[in-house]
């Protein structure tokens, strides 16, 4: 990592760029995970069934729709 930091130091204020990027990504990612964990499982069930037809809804163990 020394090579990386050394090179980055050589460029004016460049070190802040990837750090800002990382902070934005990391905070967004953490918030996203918290949000996803908090979604009710009933909602998740509804969302994940959106591609399936009404009759598929009722019969989970039905045959593949080939």
């Amino acid at each position, binding site marked *: 990592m020394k090579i990386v930091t050394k090179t980055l130091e050589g460029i004016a204020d460049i070190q802040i760029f990837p750090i800002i990027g990382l902070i934005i990504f990391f905070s967004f990612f953490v918030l996203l995970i918290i949000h*996803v964990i908090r979604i009710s499982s009933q909602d998740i069930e509804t969302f994940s069934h*959106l*591609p399936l037809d009404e009759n598929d809804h009722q019969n989970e163990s039905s045959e*593949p729709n080939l």
Partner: protein
Amino acid sequence: MELQKFTYDNRLARMFMFATILWGLVGMLVGLIIALQLIFPTMITDVAWLSFGRLRPLHTNAVIFAFVGNGMFTGIYYSTPRLLKTPMFSELLGKIHFWGWQLIIIAAAITLPLGFTVGKEYAELEWPIDIAIAAVWVVFGLNLIMTTIKRRTKHIYVAIWFYIATFVTVAVLHIVNSINIPVSFLKSYPVYAGIQDALVQWWYGHNAVAFFLTTPYLGLMYYFVPKAANRPVYSYKLSIIHFWALIFLYIWAGPHHLLYSSLPDWAQALGVVFSVMLIAPSWGGMINGLLTLRGVWDKVRESAVLKMFVVGITAYGMATFEGPLLSLKSVNALSHFTDWTIAHVHIGALGWNGMITFGMLYWLMPRLFNTKLFSEKLANTHFWLATTGMLFFAIPLYFAGFTQSLMWKEFTEEGYLKYPNLIETVVQILPMYYIRAFGGLLYISGVIIMIYNLLKTAKAGQFVATEEDQAPAMDKSLLLKDKGHRKIEGKPVLFTILALVAILIGGIVEFVPMFMVKSNVPAIASVQPYTPLELQGRDIYIREGCYNCHSQMVRPFRSEVERYGDYTKAGETVYDHPFQFGSKRTGPDLARAGVQGSLVNKPNAWHYNHFLDPQKLIPQSIMPPYPWLIRNDLNISNTPKKIRVMQQLGVPYPEGYAEKAIDDLKAQAALIAQDLRNNGIEIDDNKEVIALIAYIQRLGTDIHKSSARASGN
């Protein structure tokens, strides 16, 4: 709540479906032709528009934008209305999109073989076509977003998120990378130069893979795999996390195509770090896709559709594991410029895009024509031909890649290159090229069987132009209660803007310092603009697609410096609009082709004879002959315009030089022609080959001028 009745129009999906099939076959056949040209270089001689350098861009563009492009639109126009419980916003916009896209493909199929190219991989199309692409893309995006706005479902299913991200990002990538200044109707120069052009191009190139070949197909996977398996996606929560992580991380990874190049180390490091991180969201998608099939694995044995999905998703997993691996500098040192890259991309194209498309077509055709698939047996035959074809294609190329790279790097005990003559390493891997072509043949045979099977299916049934459905209108008051991500999901325009922000951050962080901080491209005083003749020669180099086989980037390795000369510096490329680093070395690197003492430096007469008949000079050579360069007169009338455009781009030709350029061009051409005549070659001063020789003899020489001056020579 009252149910509203509405209809889905299947006509757009059908149009795109047939286009997918047609262009898929064309793109793959061109691929087979160029694979054969590598084994039989003189298979087609003296037909300029069928030469390898011109057909290879046609192959890549056809497969990416025509086959996969139409494939994604087929799936999008079929799934979007059904997921949002509403017809498409506008059938007319859909038709404009369809015909516009097909016209663009036809324009590409005509201009690329004729040599009209910008010379940047996967972004070869000239400026009028680029503008048409942007316009048609906006039509598509408008239709998609407006359909999302007038939906009846409260939640926007994850597949649509992938479609929206595709629209937004491809628009940004295409526009930023295609900013060119026109010289004429079908000739332009990119505004960026050298290493900066390379950074923009590979930011585009890498994200074309991400947002044209990956995200829309993940969207298709999230719709068609649950449909075919009749099961909801394994983990919807995972799909949310995987979506945002994927689009945020992907955009940073472009610089991994420029490892060990003259791109500053900080940018290379960013590319590597984000590429390694990409394994997580990529495998999130793969796991989600494969585990959706839980409980129906017994059916995978019989169903060709499910089998294709399984192999497609597995190939996605393989390619996205291999990608980060190839981004590690130590691995890249070995893999870059070799057939390893070609193997890698074909696992993605033949495996992931190909198989998902085929699976989707086998599922869709019977539904659109209200019948059963004509032959499940033929579909299974296709599956096996495609799978074995892919393996016969990729595995030999992996071996070819390792073998050639290791041979390039091998030294004798005395410290000399063991294979100083590049052709020895080419001959060694030639058998692998034969097996690759066989693999391609198997794969195409499967496609032909599929076409027969699908056409028979269509013939047996009756096309269902519209399908009725009903759903309650969306209760917009529910949206007001939402918070956080749920709120975003309910507002497609806001969602689009946030996706745009996510992808812009990576680009801005990489571009701003690269363009603003001078120390990233240290200036070299002795580097001068090309002479008018060299500039014309460079345009011929670009026209013939030389960059498809010859790199111009010597990496700082002992084996490369020994073979090609001093490693390439960023400051040497500042007048290169566009850059010509290349990504594959089927032939030698040419960055120092003009430097005397380099192993690739040759006299003018050698180049002349080599263009005329490469096999006469190097019997095992796999370079095709270029007799038309010797026959064709150089068009010098556009020289002043070219110089003026270059001046506009910041290339420091003296004021008013455009008017004098033709005289300088003629004087330099006369010198080279005289040298050729002195060597017994009958030639006029005004032939194209002279300009190309002038360009090649200039390559890499500038920095040597400075050392000669410094030492008083």
